[in-house]
């Protein structure tokens, strides 16, 4: 019989990679860290494995972010690192557009407060309100409020960016 953690690994691995990727902005590194998270989970056998896995992932990502070198790379990565490109072949134009899209969303995400960003990313990783509350220290009732604000601000920041872009283009032409 497959044990709970192994089932969790199969169902949650890619969500953990994605969650980490949005913090470290390096696909390979995100995968390494995700594997480390599950190795630790299997060694530890935590009681609430899903919440535990994301809590450890968040900690690893935080440690990672402390390295100043990484932070510096993070800014240049989107442009320079080929691993972020989708695996299937894309026309050069599409690839460039995809990159720009990513950059814009990343910039918008960067404008959120750390707490709003964390709650949004945890929700997007599939955690429930109580799990998010436990990990962030918020009251369960405050998770909805935080998510509402985070979503609104993300979209607002993104739209502002788009608008700025258009204005820049208009000014150049």
């Amino acid at each position, binding site marked *: 019989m497959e044990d709970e953690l192994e089932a969790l690994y199969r169902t949650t691995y890619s969500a953990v990679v994605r969650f980490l990727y949005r913090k470290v902005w390096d696909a390979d590194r995100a995968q390494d860290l995700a594997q480390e998270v599950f190795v630790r989970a299997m060694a530890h056998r935590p009681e609430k494995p899903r919440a535990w896995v994301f809590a450890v992932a968040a900690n690893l990502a935080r440690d990672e972010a402390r390295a100043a070198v990484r932070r510096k790379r993070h800014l240049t990565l989107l442009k320079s690192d080929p691993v972020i490109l989708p695996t299937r072949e894309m026309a050069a134009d599409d690839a460039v557009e995809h990159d720009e899209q990513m950059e814009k969303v990343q910039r*918008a995400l960067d404008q959120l407060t750390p707490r709003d960003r964390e709650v949004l990313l945890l929700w997007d990783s599939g955690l429930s309100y109580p799990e998010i509350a436990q990990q962030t220290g918020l009251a369960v009732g405050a998770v*909805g409020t935080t998510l*509402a604000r985070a979503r609104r601000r993300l979209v607002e920041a993104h739209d502002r960016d788009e608008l700025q872009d258009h204005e820049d283009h208009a000014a150049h032409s």
Partner: protein
Amino acid sequence: MPHIPEDELHAYLDQALSRSQCVEIESHLASCPACQAQRDGIAALRDRTTAMLAVLAPPASLPPSVEAIRIRAGVLQSRRHRMVRLGSWAASIVAALGLGWSAHMWAGRDTGRERAAETRDRGAANAIPEAAAAQSSLIPDSSARSSTPSPRHIDVVGSPIVRQVATNPGASRERPAQTDTSRAPAPLSPTVHGLAADRGNNAEDSTRFSQVNSTVLANEREIPELATESMWRIVSVAAAEEESGAPLPSVPGLQVVQVKVQGLRPNEKIVAVDQQLATGEVIRTIEGPAAQMTDLLAHDGRDRTTAASRAFDALMTLRFGDRIVAIRGPADSLRALMNRLAMPVTKP
């Protein structure tokens, strides 16, 4: 009923509300066009943020097999286990010294030089119960605790002791070579075989360590056997290993003559291993949880200040996280052991 708050609509759409809350919201929505519009707006916002975040995804990749993860978890577990249980105390001593821990050594030797040392250290001798209590001073900073013993640490084994020697004018005059910290230290286990043979060959070597540390003269006969001795159970090597769930704390290469275990609960077990040196003397390694070990050692040291005779005994303790290893035996053997740790690999 007032309109539904924004966050509740988010929670509703996120399916984070109880059934009864949902019923309440749905009945309100059915009759409130304003809230319906609000709900649709929030649904759109939700979809948009989800789509935006979907862009921030690494390329799809195949996860490694569950087996690969399980194997790594096994390795991690056994490594942690080994570290915590100090199965290989030798490696731990190396790590401990390498990490800059200090070892206390209560030792004595009836030489003229040490008598002088005794006079000098009389104050310290009187304070020996405190020495046991002050074992917290042996605790390294917590960041060091999680480090795995590794060859990297061995590289610096010699320095802490050697540096102490260098601060002692007498010692540095006598043994200038020892102040050369750039020379590689000896790996521990291969040298331990020669421990007994080394005893007494080099008086300076074997007394050097006592100059470095405060030394206390003690009379073996007046040291009560470890106070909780009556609770010891003599067991076989295999039984001890099974009971403590770790390899025996012992000096590699020496004949094991007796293994004793005390404590009933698994994480309170103390294991004592007696091993015979070539000279027939016995060296005892005791390993156990810090709390129990501190008790044990405090009793062990209680009567030391009354020392007067010539049969001497030394006790060296090392604290490693929440566990303590104590090595008891002839003072000069332990000194030789410590010296080995600080000495260059190539010994003439």
